[in-house]
């Protein structure tokens, strides 16, 4: 099994549209939507869910207002400004402390130091993940709960299960749609992958953000390929991107021109290669041939790396 992760640094450069088109071209493969924060791949593939699981992240603290004496110890110790004196009163205090769930990072310090034992601490369900069937093969995807944390862990879970599905069904490729940025979900998407495809647009922001995410990939030892999207928007910057990529030993696999068919396909819930024979679709076909050659040469994904990034205590 090989694993290709599509990332960009900057958001909105066309990752998901490219992933969807590549899935059509790759033949049966496993799709993994690692952008658990704002997953969009399912909008194109209308997946039929065959397995649904809850994702439990860390715990969240909650003050039982009946037991709180409003001593203020929890507020004093909380480093996340998650605790305020705005809970309902009880027989002992006119107001009690309350924990804002969206600010609580689940450290448990308040729980351990409450003299009254008034603080509950229960694992919170912070999302769901699914295995589905689509017209391009099985898909593993997830939905992070509203204002939930632990997106990196959920990404790791999605990837691990996608690899398992690929092995079970003897499919050769896992195709991952990544998320923007360079933080925890991106690190979780990249670590141990066979190959990264950087989909970048030729803008000063695109160049700036590509540089940072390329540095991250180098540091994580993941080889990469570059595809410049909407390349005709600024030819000079497209060239600059390709030169910059060379410095990071990231070969270019082609340019994709701006093409309104990409948005039209999305509105029709189709991939651009299904819906169009236009310049973007033609370019993506060429990009895919180049990627396929590189994939043959690349290593199998390392799940050991996945474990390492999230659970060092296992090592």
């Amino acid at each position, binding site marked *: 099994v090989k694993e290709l992760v599509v990332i960009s640094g900057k958001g909105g450069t066309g990752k998901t549209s490219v992933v969807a088109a590549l899935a059509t071209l790759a033949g049966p493969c496993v799709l993994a939507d690692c952008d658990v924060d704002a997953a969009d791949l399912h909008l194109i593939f209308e997946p039929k869910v065959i397995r649904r699981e809850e994702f439990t992240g860390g715990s969240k603290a909650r003050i039982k207002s009946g037991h709180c004496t409003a001593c203020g110890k929890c507020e004093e110790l909380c480093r996340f400004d998650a605790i305020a004196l705005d809970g309902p009163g009880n027989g002992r205090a006119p107001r009690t402390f309350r924990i804002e769930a969206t600010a609580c*990072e689940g450290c448990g310090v308040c729980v*351990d130091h409450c003299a009254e034992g008034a603080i509950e601490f229960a694992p919170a369900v912070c999302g769901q993940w699914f295995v589905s069937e689509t017209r391009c093969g099985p898909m593993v995807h997830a939905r992070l709960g509203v204002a939930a944390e632990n997106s990196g862990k959920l990404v790791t879970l999605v990837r691990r299960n996608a690899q398992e599905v690929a092995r079970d069904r003897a499919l050769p490729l896992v195709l991952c749609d990544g998320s*923007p940025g360079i933080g925890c979900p991106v690190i979780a998407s990249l670590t141990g992958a066979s190959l990264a495809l950087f989909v970048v647009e030729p803008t000063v922001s695109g160049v700036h953000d590509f540089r940072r995410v390329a540095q991250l990939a180098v540091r994580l030892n993941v080889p990469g390929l570059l595809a410049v999207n909407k390349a005709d928007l600024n030819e000079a910057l497209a060239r600059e991107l390709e030169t910059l990529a060379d410095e990071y030993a990231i070969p270019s696999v082609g340019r994709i021109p701006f093409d309104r068919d990409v948005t039209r396909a999305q509105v029709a819930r189709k991939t651009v290669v299904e819906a169009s024979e236009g310049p973007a679709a033609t370019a993506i076909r060429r990009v895919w041939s180049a990627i396929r050659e590189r994939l043959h040469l690349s290593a199998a994904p390392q799940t050991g790396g996945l474990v390492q990034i999230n659970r*060092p205590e296992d090592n």
Partner: protein
Amino acid sequence: MKIAIASGKGGTGKTTVATNLAEVAATDGRLVAYVDCDVEEPNGHLFLKPKIERQQAIDKRLPRVDLARCTHCGRCSQVCRYGAIACVGKQVLVFTELCHSCGGCLLACPTGALQEAPRPIGELRLGTAGPVRFAEGRLNVGEAMSPPAIRAVKAAAAKADLTVLDCPPGTSCPAIESVRGSNLVVLVTEPTPFGLHDLKLAVEMVRALKLPLAVVLNRCDIGDDQVRQFCASQWIAILADIPEDRRVAEAYSRGELACVAVPSFAESIRGLLGRFLQGAAL
């Protein structure tokens, strides 16, 4: 007034709206601060081209062990919910990227063997861009956790009549940390299926935080009318409709402020500013 410019989906035009809004409002003589909260990929500086006057490290506090006082009792690793500190034989290991700096291990240590030491995770850059007061946080490559850096840049930003917070995409911790405490969250979206889906998630996030919200529809003439229908059904105000314009995209690609390069775009932004000042959305 603090206005957070956010979105579920990336690349919808947050930075374009935020930088141009700051520029237009400041040119009109208002005291404006622009704060780049997208510490993973900060882009505002590329357009505002600020003169940086102060630079300092953003630190994260990490536990450090004084092995002379450590009795290897293991209390620190028992209380740590993140698995960030481990007692292995005569060693205490700290996994820096897992530590949330909650201070729990220090409180638990019976011998006072743990102290905190700062470790830089990013950089804070403050300055001025013409009349705009500029602040930016920049996370070091390889650091996983951005909320501490976001908190640092928000705390350091200059006081102003209008503070524009340029937020990271998404709906989880970084986005939440950025919009928290603002007077209005403006969600920039585009009228496509991806734009609509991620807008719905972002609306849920903002509502969970109990903050007022409104929408800016960018590239309003592409795609379909589902975003408009959604906003109408949810009683969400659309404060500006910005048409797609190749000149805006090209100015953006070169790092130019579109309000300078394209007069019709400046009018859209001025209209948006007017809506804020009327308090129409609040």
